[in-house]
């Protein structure tokens, strides 16, 4: 069945609700409005206000409530409309959810799932166009995943609900209209995935940059690795690929200073230095707040042409 990324997210929610009665959804406009991106459309009617709960505009309060519900034995799915607003909820996520297992000596953990949309490219201006996956991937105790495919949009939520850790799932509005076959297979929250085979250069990416990277790969015979899990990183497929291609470009929609790209490159330098036949390269967003005008926004983000240029730069 070919469905959109948006439908895959919705299907994941329905499957999660049907599978486990402890699961409920809370967040801004998830109920009556059907979700800002219409992901939870129809859920209030089907499952009722007990399980589909509209919250006040206070991320600190409702994310905190979600952590509490998880401690109380529920399986909450907390939707934070966008990652930009999640900054208001960093304390319950970082200081509470991520650390309770450690602080309680393993007695309690908070199996809360936080879904949030992220990324730029839709002319929403600087404050609504952040890509902050790297901030979350910095924190031990969190599992951080990025859904870049239809199967992951559907399956990552189900896998996250089975995980005893707090899981942050990043969803990409830039991909909401992409379509593909939903395999219905279960997915893991532990491995990076090889999305395209190639022989000349390894292209490592995640999230919204995956389709751009796949497009660029056509031109440079690139092997594309989708990191999928941003914490803990699975570098095995990356290293295996680099041992074949000896060249690597990391494509990351985040700013390059302190980015996930930086972490990936550092690990490659640590573990595969002698396999490299060219310097490591990366394509990130420009180090500016994302501009509003369309042409400037496009210029500020990774694009297939930039990826191709970076890859070609690794050859003489």
């Amino acid at each position: 069945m070919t469905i959109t990324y948006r439908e895959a997210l919705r299907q994941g929610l329905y499957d999660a609700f049907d599978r486990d009665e402890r699961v409920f959804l809370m967040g801004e406009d998830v109920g009556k409005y059907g979700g800002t991106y219409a992901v939870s459309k129809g859920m209030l009617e089907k499952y009722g206000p007990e399980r589909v709960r509209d919250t006040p505009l206070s991320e600190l309060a409702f994310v905190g409530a979600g952590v509490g519900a998880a401690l109380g034995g529920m399986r909450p799915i907390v939707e934070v409309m966008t990652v930009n607003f999640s900054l208001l909820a960093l304390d319950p996520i970082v200081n509470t959810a991520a650390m309770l297992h450690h602080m309680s000596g393993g007695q309690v953990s908070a199996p809360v799932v936080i879904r949030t949309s992220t990324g730029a490219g839709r002319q929403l201006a600087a404050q609504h166009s952040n890509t902050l996956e790297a901030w979350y991937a910095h924190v031990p105790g969190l599992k951080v995943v990025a859904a870049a495919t239809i199967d992951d949009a559907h399956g990552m939520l189900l896998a996250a609900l089975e995980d005893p850790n707090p899981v942050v799932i990043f969803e990409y509005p830039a991909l909401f209209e992409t379509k593909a076959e939903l395999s219905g297979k279960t997915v893991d929250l532990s491995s990076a995935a090889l999305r395209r085979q190639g022989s000349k250069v390894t292209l490592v990416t995640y999230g919204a940059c995956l389709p751009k990277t796949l497009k660029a790969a056509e031109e440079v015979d690139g092997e594309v690795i989708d990191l999928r899990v941003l914490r803990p990183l699975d570098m095995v497929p990356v290293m295996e690929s680099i041992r074949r291609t000896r060249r690597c470009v990391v494509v990351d929609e985040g700013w390059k200073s302190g980015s996930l790209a930086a972490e990936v490159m550092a690990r490659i330098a640590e573990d595969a230095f002698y396999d490299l036949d060219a310097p490591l390269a990366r394509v990130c967003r420009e180090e500016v707040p994302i501009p509003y005008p369309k042409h400037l926004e496009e210029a500020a983000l990774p694009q297939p042409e930039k990826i191709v240029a970076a890859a070609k730069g690794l050859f003489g």
Partner: protein
Amino acid sequence: MIEFKLPSLGADMDEGKLLEWKVKPGDQVKRGQVIAVVDTSKAAVEVEIWSDGVVSELLTKPGETIAVGTVMARLDGAAKPEERPKEQLVMRKPASPAARKRARELDVDVEKVAGTGPHGAVTVEDVEKAARLPGKPEAVPEKLEKIEKPEKALEIRKAIAAAMSRSKREIPHYYLSQAIPMQRAAEWLGAENAKRPITGRLLMGVLQLKAVALALGDFPDLNGFYRDGTYQRAPAVHAGVAISLRQGGLVAPAIHDVAELSLDELMKALADLVRRARAGSLRSSEMSDPTITVTNLGDTGVDTVFPIIYPPQVAIVGFGAVKEGRLVVSLGADHRASDGRRGALFLAELARRLQEPEKL
């Protein structure tokens, strides 16, 4: 007073052999002048001096092999600080890490390879291409030329093949390993070596060898020969030391009566043995006498050695690299002569001995 030290003449050089002095005490020397010829593992190299002055003393004798950094001569006069020539500060040729690694494997000089990578950097492909060029000596033929007889390498290979096939065919090996803390031994050795001139310094391998020999005192069932269906203990520990040869292959000649030798004597014996093994001048008794073999692959970074017994011996001890203060020592032993528990106790005793380096 200026000290003239043996410079490193290549990234892989850690010692050199003085072939000839081009100056004598009293000679005036000028910056850039060739004053000595030193043999590295690769070639004889003319060594220049980087200060002006008058030679007052030559400390190294022709024929001596010394470590990089050893003071070879003293000069009086010009008090100008040692300057490195500008051309030595020029950046080395850009080459990828993988290309450098491949170049070492193929014995290709990266500096002479034309680079086609980004910024003209040398790539793996460039190195491999250079290695294939006619006239450029490839690794294998060049190394073979260095051997007196090319068939020597083949003979060694055949001998190893025969011994190891027999070993794996006949000997029911059991393998044990134990990680041994090495902080004490390392500290003791560091302090001991600090007191010594560079030429008199001890290697960790010597401590290991001595500890093995002493530990074997309580385990005669690991030191001897299994022949014709019976085990014969050996009256002394003659440790066969596995030495890799430059042309490939290895030999494991004996150091006699290791338990009776002081560390200094053992160090001398080891250095002498390695030198002669590589020069191909071993004595026949050294080849036939080993009662146990010790192999050390730690310099390659290997964690654990799974050693194969050299028949008719009944045991072999392998040392890996010291990592995070610990060293994995392993034992391959002949189950016909001893049992696992004995082997385990031997390793424990070896570990204990290495905790008391001052008693070795």
